[in-house]
């Protein structure tokens, strides 16, 4: 493995340690860039002083030393933490329900436009095709999309597993609470625990939980810093 590749791997490991420690992505990216520049400056100075480039690179690595101290200094400062870390409760506890509502609205509007476009819209929202499409958007697509987004954010920002688990539980409960009630004379959309679809909530909980584990396995591997 050449030195460039070794540097890239070392940077990827450092980035992962900083992210896991809760340091904001902006600070992680810039720190890596500044360290790279710092190393290049040391090499340049030594080469100008008459050293061989390989020896200069070796010396620059020695001078910059081991990253433990840098990680400790960065993770100890609350002002450098990512918003996802500082306001995790806001995103993963208060965020899911508004997200499900907003995505539900968007998904339903998209379904309306699509049905209109392919000539399946009748204007009667209680018609079978339309009703089942809109309900699928509200009960499945929107909660699943919200859950996936939150799981992705949790993995990307390396937050503690408790937060995405909270988010997945809330999303699954929200999904189970969205129901359609037809009294014969009037059809209503209900949001509440009575009636509550336990099966849907359980299925979404497991699907999103599995998605979180898969994302964690895939995205939390050390990445080259240009993929950050």
């Amino acid at each position: 493995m050449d030195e460039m590749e070794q540097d890239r791997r070392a940077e990827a490991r450092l980035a992962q340690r900083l992210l896991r420690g809760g340091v904001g992505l902006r600070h992680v990216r810039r720190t890596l860039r500044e360290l790279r520049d710092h190393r290049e400056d040391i090499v340049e100075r030594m080469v100008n002083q008459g050293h061989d480039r390989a020896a200069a690179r070796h010396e620059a690595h020695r001078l910059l030393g081991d990253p433990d101290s840098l990680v400790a200094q960065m993770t100890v400062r609350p002002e450098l933490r990512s918003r996802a870390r500082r306001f995790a409760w806001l995103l993963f506890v208060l965020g899911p329900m508004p997200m499900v509502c907003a995505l539900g609205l968007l998904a339903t509007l998209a379904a309306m436009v699509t049905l209109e476009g392919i000539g399946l819209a009748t204007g009667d929202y209680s018609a079978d095709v339309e009703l089942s499409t809109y309900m699928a958007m509200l009960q499945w697509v929107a909660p699943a999309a919200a859950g996936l987004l939150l799981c992705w954010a949790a993995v990307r920002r390396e937050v503690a597993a408790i937060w995405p688990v909270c988010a997945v539980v809330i999303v699954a409960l929200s999904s189970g609470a969205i129901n359609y009630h037809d009294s014969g004379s009037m059809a209503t959309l209900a949001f509440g625990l009575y009636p509550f679809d336990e099966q849907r909530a359980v299925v979404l909980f497991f699907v999103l939980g599995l998605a979180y584990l898969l994302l964690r396995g895939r995205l939390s591997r050390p990445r080259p810093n240009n993929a950050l």
Partner: protein
Amino acid sequence: MAGSDRALMAGVPELLLLQLLARRTMYGYELAQQVRLASRDTLAFGESVLYPALHSLEQRRLLQTRERTVDGRVRIYYELTAKGSTRLTQLTAEWRRIATGVEAVLAAGPHG
């Protein structure tokens, strides 16, 4: 800062970085060199002290950054803000007060 007591030196990087940046804008490596030169080799900031301190000062709006291309390389320059200038005045006064007090105690000797 090699060879110095960490507790004693807490707050020193902030004061020195603000002071050096009050003279002119600089990038990371340049600052590290200036700390060494200006302190006549008494102090040296490793990257593990320098960059976290700079990022923290920027996050607290005491410094701001600007990218500049110099000799074909894009560098991140740090510069003092008005808030940073006020903070430097406070820290300098505080440092002088403490240094005077400590010096008075040390000057009195062990039996003073």
